[in-house]
């Protein structure tokens, strides 16, 4: 059970006025706020441990290295990866996907196919476009229906022995759809394709088991799971990580360097060139521990209640149209009202202290499919309340009055 008051108490950012109103923050799909323990973990690092890691023999360097590596272990457990060295620290999901897609440049060949879904974030489209371009492979798109659900028949038809990679998000940031990734992975494996799951939105909203899913790659962003900005984690199956060429060159990622020949270090260091975001890495552990202390199951059921309530209340508004109406949804409600431009709606909501996101949510192809310029998106976290939903609904009604 969730004690939302207790939880809210832990988030300093929530307790402020915006434009004269207490803040209602419903832009969690973009980034979540951080509990005090996470902020403190960062300060603690800088005040007590601060040191560069891995390469140092001195005390602070050891302490910092231990803390950083402990975080890797926490992430391993959280995603249920088999091996510690299958966890690569990244800057976030964008970097993670680029790391993998860049590696596939050298693996893909002309005639090969990469499948992405019609509801991907730009970060899971553009890197694959770039990889396909430089390898002359072909990018194909798994279509979705008007409810915002992927068409599994088409997916099955698209799969063939040409398919080398399938890249899909676990939960869509624009629509909230939860995709049947376990099934999709299984089918992809039947044709020998590797599967990358973009877990940016799944991180905060569902529990993840990479072994159960049998995912080849899975990535999460720290700043979306109550953790710091500039840090994330990529899981990759050992065999794949061994197969992929390194991404960035630099310190840490090499075993030996000479001008004639450079040999690369073992996993995970092969993919971790340069001084990482040490503070971020260490505090990401705190964030994940915090989530687990509340319990992902509790979070999931509490958020479902909120989203259901919000959907119900918003449905009463005349002219509202929900974009993304899958049965399996989490965390996100995207909508437009009449012919009101989402941008106009968002500005008025902001004046009323309600923070939502408007626009294409970095998923322009989704907007194109629905022939809309964008949506208003309310996205939820475990610290949101029914009162937040009420304020949203009031705001939408007020904006509607002003704008029509």
């Amino acid at each position, binding site marked *: 059970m969730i004690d939302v008051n207790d939880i809210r108490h832990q988030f300093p950012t929530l307790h402020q006025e915006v*434009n004269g109103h207490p803040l209602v923050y419903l832009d969690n799909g973009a980034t979540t706020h951080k509990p005090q323990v996470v902020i403190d973990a960062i300060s603690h690092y800088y005040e007590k441990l601060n040191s560069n890691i891995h390469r140092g023999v001195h005390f602070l360097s050891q302490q910092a290295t231990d803390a950083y590596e402990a975080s890797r272990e926490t992430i391993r457990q959280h995603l249920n990866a088999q091996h510690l060295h299958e966890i690569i620290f990244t800057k976030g999901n964008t970097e993670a996907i680029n790391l993998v897609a860049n590696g596939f440049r050298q693996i893909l060949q002309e005639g090969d196919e990469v499948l992405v879904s019609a509801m991907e974030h730009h970060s899971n489209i553009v890197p694959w476009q770039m990889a396909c371009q430089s390898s002359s492979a072909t990018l194909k798109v798994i279509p979705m229906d008007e409810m915002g659900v992927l068409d599994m028949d088409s997916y099955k038809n698209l799969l063939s022995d040409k398919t080398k990679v399938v890249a899909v998000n676990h939960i869509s940031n624009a629509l909230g759809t939860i995709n049947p990734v376990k099934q999709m992975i299984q089918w992809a494996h039947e044709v020998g394709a590797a599967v990358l799951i973009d877990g940016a939105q799944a991180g905060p909203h569902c529990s993840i088991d990479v072994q159960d899913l049998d995912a080849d790659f899975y990535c999460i962003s720290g700043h979306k799971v109550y953790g710091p900005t500039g840090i994330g984690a990529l899981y990759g199956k050992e065999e794949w990580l061994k197969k992929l060429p390194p991404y960035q060159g630099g310190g840490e990622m090499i075993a030996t360097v000479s001008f004639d020949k450079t040999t690369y270090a073992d996993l995970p260091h092969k993919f971790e060139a340069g001084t990482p975001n040490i503070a971020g890495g260490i505090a990401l552990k705190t964030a994940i521990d915090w989530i687990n202390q509340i319990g992902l199951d509790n979070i999931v059921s509490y958020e479902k209640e909120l989203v259901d309530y919000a959907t119900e209340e918003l449905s009463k508004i005349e002219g509202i149209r929900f974009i993304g109406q899958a049965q399996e949804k989490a965390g996100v409600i995207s909508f437009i009202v009449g012919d*009101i*431009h*989402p*941008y*106009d709606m968002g*500005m*008025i909501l*902001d*004046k009323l202290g309600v923070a939502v996101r*408007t*626009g294409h949510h970095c998923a322009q192809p989704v907007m194109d499919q629905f022939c809309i*310029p*964008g949506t208003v998106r309310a996205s939820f976290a475990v610290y949101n309340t029914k009162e937040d939903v009420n304020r949203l609904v009031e705001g939408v009604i007020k904006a509607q009055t*002003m*704008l029509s």
Partner: protein
Amino acid sequence: MASIQDIQQDIIDEFDMFEEWMGKYEHIIDLGKSLPLIEEQFKTKDNLIKGCQSRVWLHAQHKDGKVIYTADSDAIMTKGIIALLVRAFSEQKAQDIVEADTDFINQIGLKEQLSPTRANGLVSMVKQMKLYALAFQSQN
């Protein structure tokens, strides 16, 4: 036709009547509704101003020594803002537009009321209008 400066003063006075953002917003929305639309044929890619979330078309022509602007946007508040700018600059001499002070935008306290993306949009609109005027001016 009143001078740019006079019109700008009118606009400032008008906005001074509203103490709250709500009044200002509603006024902008009203202005947006009243904007004389751009002719469909001018809603071209060339006339599109790179904004952020809303699209803005701006067309300018030079007629009888005056610059005439028409414009449109798919978002009504953006439309209202361009309505203001069109009112301030349209049917004026190119040179006057080029030289015009644009501080009235700050004085109506709109910038603080707008998101930076929209405020940036506003700045690029003014810039674009001045660019047109400059082009016409140098034609002479």
